[in-house]
């Protein structure tokens, strides 16, 4: 399009060319692919700006509707521990930080567990069979903090699916809460040794346990195992800061 520039294209589109000049321009369009492309781009830009910059009452109304549903379906206060859909046998599971757990057993001057240890167990049922029922019941008790009732249910579940890192993780957490600390830490260390999505959540929870025990050295060593791109990284960084 050596003979024409952007301003010529705009004059053409705006009808500001004289008839003879317009005729020449249109002839050039037939033979000059670059000029035709530049004209198409101008039209695209003008149409897009027109669509996006000019008021659109329908879009504004839709945005208002979306804003309403946002507050209903997404909570700004909710913090979530991410969990990947894990094994087709058990479907999806999610862990959510919610509320404050009061751990009298662990209480010390600094309540790290109360600040960082609020875990909720959620189970998405896919198969609707007995294994799912076990998980659902375990989640129910877990979220009611009835940890001693969680452990036998997850024991049974793990007999049918010993590879379930999710069950192992929650059993580990439940065990540490119900006084079976060694067993709980053993479960959590097994989860950390694996490659599941719970790996770094387990590392964080072990660190949290040691932090609550005022064993800062051990807590920090576990926190260091959590990479920056892990889901638990933000919590780990915050706990590390608190410990230092």
């Amino acid at each position, binding site marked *: 399009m050596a003979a024409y*520039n*952007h*301003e010529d294209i*705009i*004059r053409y589109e*705006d009808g*500001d060319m004289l008839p003879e000049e317009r005729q020449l321009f249109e002839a050039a369009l037939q033979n000059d692919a670059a000029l035709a492309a*530049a004209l198409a*781009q*101008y039209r695209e*830009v*003008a*149409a*897009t*700006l*027109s*669509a*996006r*910059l*000019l008021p*659109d009452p*329908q*879009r504004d*109304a*839709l*945005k208002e*509707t*979306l*804003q309403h*549903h*946002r507050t*209903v*379906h*997404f*909570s*700004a206060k*909710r*913090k*979530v*521990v*991410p*969990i*990947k*859909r894990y094994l087709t046998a058990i479907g*999806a599971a*999610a862990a959510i930080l919610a509320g404050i757990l009061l751990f009298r057993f662990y209480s010390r001057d600094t309540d790290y567990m109360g600040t960082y240890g609020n875990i909720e167990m959620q189970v998405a049922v896919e198969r609707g069979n007995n294994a799912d029922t076990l998980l659902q019941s375990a989640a129910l008790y877990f979220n009611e903090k009835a940890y001693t009732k969680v452990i036998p249910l997850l024991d049974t579940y793990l007999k049918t699916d010993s590879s379930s890192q999710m069950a192992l993780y929650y059993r580990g957490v439940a065990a540490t809460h119900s006084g079976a600390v060694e067993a709980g830490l053993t479960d959590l260390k097994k989860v950390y040794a694996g490659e599941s*999505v719970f790996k770094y959540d387990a590392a964080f929870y072990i660190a949290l346990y040691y932090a609550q025990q005022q064993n800062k050295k051990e807590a920090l060593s576990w926190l260091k195992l959590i990479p920056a*791109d892990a*889901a638990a990284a933000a919590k780990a960084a915050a706990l590390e800061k608190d410990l230092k």
Partner: protein
Amino acid sequence: MFLLPNANQSQMSTHPDQRYLDGLLRNDTRLVQEIYERFAGRIRHHILQHQGTEDDAADIFQEAIIDVYNQAKYKQLQLTCPFEPFFLLICKRKWLNEIKKRGRQPVTKRLDDVYEVGEDVFAAAEQVLKEEAQAGMFLTQFERLGEKCREILRQSLTGEAQEKIAAAMGVTYGYLRKKKSECMATLLSYIQAQKI
């Protein structure tokens, strides 16, 4: 596959899920509610799994709906595939782009790890994302123009007679025409530079 106006629409039938797009266009609150009820949880789950927060998930979800609205309204998007995988893929792709923008390394290699999508769904979602990314780039370049240029172009886009716009802006018709041409040429050069 979805169709633009210049495609041969008559050869492809619109999917019944076109009702979602039609509903967005008329701000059908029940349909918007259905979209949130059916998909918000899954998008939250996905984004929280992939380094995001609840707010990130809400933002991405909302932006994706507006993207679909814009495409339906201004690009005459006609859905010829199911809405669910199409919409979920748009959300996931948008989040992947956001992660990259924030300078983080995406954890997953495959975005469709939870949801197997067909080529038609993939193409439709990609097209929406491409169009919306382009529109975003145009607007970014528009914002680089001076205030006067932006105002002239904004006014010119209304379709009002240029004489009227010139009078309203307190400039001569000749000045407005010249300035509009210069401003648009500058904008086009900015946009061209982005594509190189």
